[in-house]
């Protein structure tokens, strides 16, 4: 017997997960086309279907009621707040960019293409669900949807040994850390008897008063961190990142570096904050009593960014370099988490948005250069500025933005993050981050130097197709625009927390 009200509420709630449903439909459609029309296996068809699916997934959002922090649906599995509302288009954009990048570069074979688009859509769906979830079970499921399918994405280029190795590392590392996190979930379920985050958070706050329970909470926090820091590629769970990023097809690397990483950070906000921090009203949060995880995270943040930046210096493979750079950026982003304030959360979201454009941009250029006859090694960038000025100028802008120089969006993002820690008077972290910016300059500039300051070693002409240029332009506009006038995004972000 299914209670009537279940059906009722499910039917109502289903409209809230319209985007995910549309994505599922798109997946099925692609699958059908792939199976039924084997002679139609043109890339462009799948691209159109996937992009249409992603674009369509965003449409229902504007039909839905105004988001509110306590508006939950589908038996409290999901919440409809501003973070959810804005994350969905964000991940849709991530998906679209990935698909387009796959389309314009030739790294994914035609024979793998439809599966690739399906997986991208499915991971996107997982990420969309993840940010909306307020239930441990749902979080776990979405987390694994995102995770397991991205292992596949990394290994999708089966002809390539490095792709396989990367996938193996990713799957073993990922399965282990998510298993660890799951064990942490189970412990918290034991404490609360519920999988609902709200219920658990009350129990945690209560339990943190008891000295007997503290050990459990510490273990739980650490196990949670294993999963979250793994997803965000932060120290000490970052080791998979450079290898996986290098081995994966470049569009997928770009995808991983913004999608799951962003999901990981949103999960910090969605999962970690409600459970282990209190006091949302005062715009400043506090760690639940007696558990000083912010200090640990601050340390993790500092080590992550320093390690990422230092290790990046010596890389000659651009994907690997950008992988370390993305580790460093995880460190920067953690500053926002550490600051335990609304400003910190806003800064994380803001940074994720600008990071999306600049980082995908950088990877896009890497992919385009590689597919236009170059390679991912820095050597093939020597003197490229003269041969492919448009792409190189774009690359330079993305890199300067990643450094955090005005007038590019990355600078504003960094200002947000710095502001967050300085607001909480964690000055040492701000200074460490500031000095890290300087270190990061060094390796980003190596690329710029190779492109513009050095003479070409080979004279092959690099032809970048128009579609690639348009895609780059689409990434450049926000990278530059948000650096000069970011008030609209600032307003949106301010409304979220």
């Amino acid at each position, binding site marked *: 017997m299914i209670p009537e009200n279940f059906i009722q509420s499910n039917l109502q709630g289903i409209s809230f997960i319209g985007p995910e449903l549309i994505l599922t439909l798109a997946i099925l459609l692609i699958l059908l086309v792939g199976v039924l029309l084997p002679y139609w296996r043109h890339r462009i068809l799948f691209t159109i279907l996937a992009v249409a699916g992603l674009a369509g997934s965003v449409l229902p959002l504007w039909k839905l009621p105004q988001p509110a922090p306590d508006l939950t649906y589908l038996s409290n599995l999901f919440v409809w707040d501003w973070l959810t509302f804005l994350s969905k288009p964000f991940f849709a954009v991530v998906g679209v960019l990935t698909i387009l990048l796959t389309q314009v570069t030739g790294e994914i074979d035609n024979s793998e293409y439809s599966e690739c688009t399906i997986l991208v859509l499915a991971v996107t769906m997982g990420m969309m669900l993840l940010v909306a979830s307020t239930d441990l079970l749902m979080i*776990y499921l979405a987390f694994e949807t995102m995770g397991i399918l991205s292992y596949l994405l990394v290994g999708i280029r089966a002809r390539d040994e490095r792709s396989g190795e990367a996938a193996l590392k990713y799957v073993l590392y990922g399965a282990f850390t998510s298993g660890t996190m799951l064990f942490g979930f189970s412990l918290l*379920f*034991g404490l609360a*008897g519920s999988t609902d985050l709200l219920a658990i958070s009350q129990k945690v706050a209560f339990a943190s008063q008891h000295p007997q329970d503290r050990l459990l909470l510490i273990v739980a926090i650490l196990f949670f961190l294993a999963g979250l820091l793994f997803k965000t590629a932060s120290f000490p769970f970052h080791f998979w990142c450079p290898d996986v990023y290098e081995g994966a097809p470049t569009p997928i690397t770009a995808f991983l570096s913004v999608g799951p990483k962003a999901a990981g950070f949103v999960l910090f906000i969605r999962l970690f904050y409600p459970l282990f921090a209190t006091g949302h009203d005062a715009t400043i949060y506090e760690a639940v009593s007696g558990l000083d995880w912010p200090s640990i995270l601050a340390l993790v943040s500092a080590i992550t960014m320093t390690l990422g930046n230092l290790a990046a210096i010596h890389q000659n493979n651009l994907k690997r370099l950008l992988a370390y750079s993305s580790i460093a950026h995880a460190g920067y982003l953690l500053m926002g988490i550490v600051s335990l304030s609304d400003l910190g959360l806003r800064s994380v979201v803001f940074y994720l948005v600008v990071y999306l454009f600049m980082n995908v941009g950088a990877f896009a250029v890497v992919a385009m250069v590689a597919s236009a006859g170059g390679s991912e090694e820095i050597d093939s960038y020597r003197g490229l500025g003269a041969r492919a000025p448009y792409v190189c100028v774009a690359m330079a802008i993305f890199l300067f933005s990643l450094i955090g120089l005005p007038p590019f969006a990355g600078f504003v993002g960094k200002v947000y993050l710095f502001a967050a820690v300085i607001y909480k008077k964690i000055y040492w972290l701000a200074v460490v981050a500031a000095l890290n910016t300087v270190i990061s300059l060094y390796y980003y500039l190596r690329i710029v130097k190779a492109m513009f300051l050095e003479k070409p070693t080979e004279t092959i002409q690099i032809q970048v197709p128009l579609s690639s240029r348009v895609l780059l332009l689409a990434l450049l506009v926000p990278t530059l625009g948000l650096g000069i006038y970011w008030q609209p995004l600032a307003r949106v972000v301010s409304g979220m927390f």
Partner: protein
Amino acid sequence: MQYSLPSFLIVSSLLFCLGMYTVLTRRNAIGILMGIELVLNGAGLNFVAFSRFLEPSQTTNLLSGQIFTLFIIAVAAAEVAVALAIVLSLYSRMKSIDVEDFKNLRG
């Protein structure tokens, strides 16, 4: 041991830790996978045990623990399928599933 919650927790902790030990010490990729299965089973046992022993209340349904385990099994299935596919594909090329052999990506 008594039929009580701590007994089950001890078992699940042992499962978890033996799984972890397996993961750490195996050089065989499938061996590592087995360790991961142990870890997942440890978590699953926890959920079921808690759903049995905890105080039921009005607002929450302890059955969600069992449901959780159900989903863990489903996810584990997907995970194993994916992992094995990757392992087999690597094996077909490298003729090895020794993780020590996969260190081309480093530095």
